[in-house]
């Protein structure tokens, strides 16, 4: 009996040594690294969208007993996290540190477009799959060609601008609004890109841009912008804005009585804090993102997010970030910890995620939510690039 166990053990050891994937004991955890801002300009967004989902995912996997590997063993996840202080130089250093010092098995992609692209060469160098869930860029083809292990899931700037034009035209066709659009943007990377993409698209869609102004990041009083937009007498208001200014513009619009039937603000409209601040008055507000709230997966996710992290998830990038982690989870469970195999698997397989079925085409997800709308206290997706479950758009009632 004793001898037989010993033999078995020896055989297992020999097998483990022989297998290229390097199976280890069930108790041996899989090391996962994570780098994102905890401080600096992007920390506020990361604290809502990024970190809680990393926390939730690690909690759930370990509660389940760990990742179920192909050989039937269970491996728990050990998280190593770093703060990059919203500084791309720090992001690069931290990813290098995770790869060569901590020797982690996988790394959760950083937060935001700039930090993800700064880290992309390092991910590519060591062959880590980088599921960049919080990057929105129009350079997807070029970037995926350069970095064979990067994946994009959140969409492109052009698609976001396109969808806004479509939503506005839908309301126009229903006779709810005219074609006059007031457009403002924050003069920072994403805001400039979106405004630049939107100008020709709105024009082709037959929308007339009657007010088009930018404002600097960190402006402390946005009332001149809102006054200017109101004076242009628009039918629709579109702001390509960042979190602090999304809050400020909305508050100012309410005070100034900017009454339009279509009201759009970009990033942070999908934050629960937006509802927390403005309550019922945001009914009918349009914003970037959106989700299909009716699937059981989404319902379970939102409940678990609240329970484990104590906070509500946002209705845009939060579930996408979580879905990115699910992709990583399923790929590891399918092929093990060999990074090359995992990357190849992600490129080919179909994943069952909280966002529905995900299949990467040319390393990016082509069906994503683009416009959402607050309806009865929930932020529903109303426009997407081919996803099911979109709610019909409503005109915004008065404040």
């Amino acid at each position, binding site marked *: 009996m004793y001898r037989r166990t010993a033999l078995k053990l020896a055989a297992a050891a020999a097998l483990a040594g022989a297998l290229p994937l390097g199976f280890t004991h069930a108790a041996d955890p899989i090391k996962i690294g994570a780098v994102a*801002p*905890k*401080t*600096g*300009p992007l*920390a*506020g*967004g*990361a*604290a*809502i969208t990024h*970190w809680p989902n990393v926390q939730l995912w690690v909690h759930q996997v370990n509660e389940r007993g760990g990742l179920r590997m192909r050989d039937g063993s269970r491996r728990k996840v050990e998280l190593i996290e770093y703060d990059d202080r919203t500084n791309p130089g720090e992001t690069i250093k931290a990813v290098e540190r995770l790869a060569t010092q901590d020797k982690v098995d996988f790394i959760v992609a950083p937060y935001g477009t700039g930090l993800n692209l700064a880290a992309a060469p390092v991910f590519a160098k060591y062959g880590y799959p980088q599921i960049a869930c919080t990057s929105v860029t129009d350079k997807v083809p070029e970037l995926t060609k350069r970095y064979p292990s990067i994946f994009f899931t959140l969409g492109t700037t052009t698609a976001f601008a396109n969808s806004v034009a479509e939503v506005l035209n839908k309301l126009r066709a229903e006779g709810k609004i005219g074609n006059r659009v007031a457009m*403002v943007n924050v*003069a920072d990377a994403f805001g400039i890109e979106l405004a630049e993409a939107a100008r020709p698209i709105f024009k082709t869609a037959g929308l007339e841009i009657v007010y088009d*102004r*930018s*404002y*600097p990041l*960190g*402006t*402390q*009083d946005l*009332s*001149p*912008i809102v*006054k*200017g937009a109101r004076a242009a007498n628009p039918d629709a208001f579109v702001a390509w804005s960042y*979190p*602090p200014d999304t*809050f*400020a513009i909305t*508050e*100012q619009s*309410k*005070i*100034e*009585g900017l009454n339009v039937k279509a009201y759009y603000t970009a990033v*942070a409209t999908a*934050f629960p*804090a937006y509802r*927390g*601040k*403005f*309550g019922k008055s945001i009914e009918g507000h349009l914003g970037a993102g959106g989700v299909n709230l009716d699937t059981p997966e989404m319902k379970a996710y939102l409940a678990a997010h609240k329970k484990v992290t104590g*906070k509500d998830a946002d209705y845009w990038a939060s579930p996408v970030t979580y879905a990115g982690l699910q992709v990583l989870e399923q790929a590891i469970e399918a092929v093990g910890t060999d990074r090359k195999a995992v990357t190849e698997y992600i490129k080919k397989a179909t994943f069952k995620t909280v966002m529905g079925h995900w299949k990467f085409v040319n390393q990016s997800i082509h069906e994503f939510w683009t416009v959402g709308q607050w309806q009865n206290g929930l932020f529903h997706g109303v426009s997407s690039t081919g996803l099911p479950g979109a709610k019909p758009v409503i005109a915004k009632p008065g404040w």
Partner: protein
Amino acid sequence: MDILITGILLGATYSLIAMGLTLQYGVARIMNLANGEMLVAGAFGAFWVFTAQQASPFAAALVVVPGAFALNWLIYRYLLRPLVRRAKNRGMLEVDSILATFGMSFVLVGIMLMVFGGGYFTYSYLAEPFEIFGSPFALNRVVACLVAVAISGLLYWGLNGTRTGMALRALAVDPAAAGLVAIDVPRMSAFSFALGGAVTAAGGIVLSTFLTMDASIGVVFTMKALIIVIMGGVGDVRGAIVAALILGLAETAVASLIDPGLTLAAAYLLFILVLLLRPEGLFGRRQS
């Protein structure tokens, strides 16, 4: 008219940001780079009182203002006094205080991060239209303006109408000479630094009713405050208030009449022009 009122309201906001630093830098000679963090801490207090206690954010002032006073007094007493003592001249103190308060700002951000987390905090309070001459303005900004007027009035009275105020003004002019006329320089410096911290925190409470903040946003306010204080002239509360109003009016005028994209550019341009034409600031005394 709209521009005038909006500009004044913004200027009042700026004066709330800058008044505390004038006291700290002008009188106590500490270029406090952690000033913005104190403002954010005050704002956190108001946010917590509003969301967790369901009370008016202004109620937070009862705890926050004395708390900030005590904290800043301790900071001055135990962290900055040694620097003042070892500094051979004003230049050295400036360098040392830049270095030390830069470190403190990191510590404060770290503490706030631990206590409150890194997310945005924002709430709605008095976000209603308030009619002035037929145009709607945000009530919370109007209230902020009133608070700014009240605080600056109190400071003005305190500085010009009391013995302590006279001592502080003497200190602002010349610490060495102040010592000669029996002014307890260390004590007065500590008092003025602590008072500056308390005013800043009070400003944070008011600002939190209409600005969205997070734990690491303090540096934005520090920069604005530095520029206003230098533009107004070091050591003069009036200067800071006038500079704040000028900036507020200029930014609003540029945003309404030219292009909102150039508001901050215009503010910095104005600041630079003032410095070039009057290096000692609007109300400053020429240094010999």
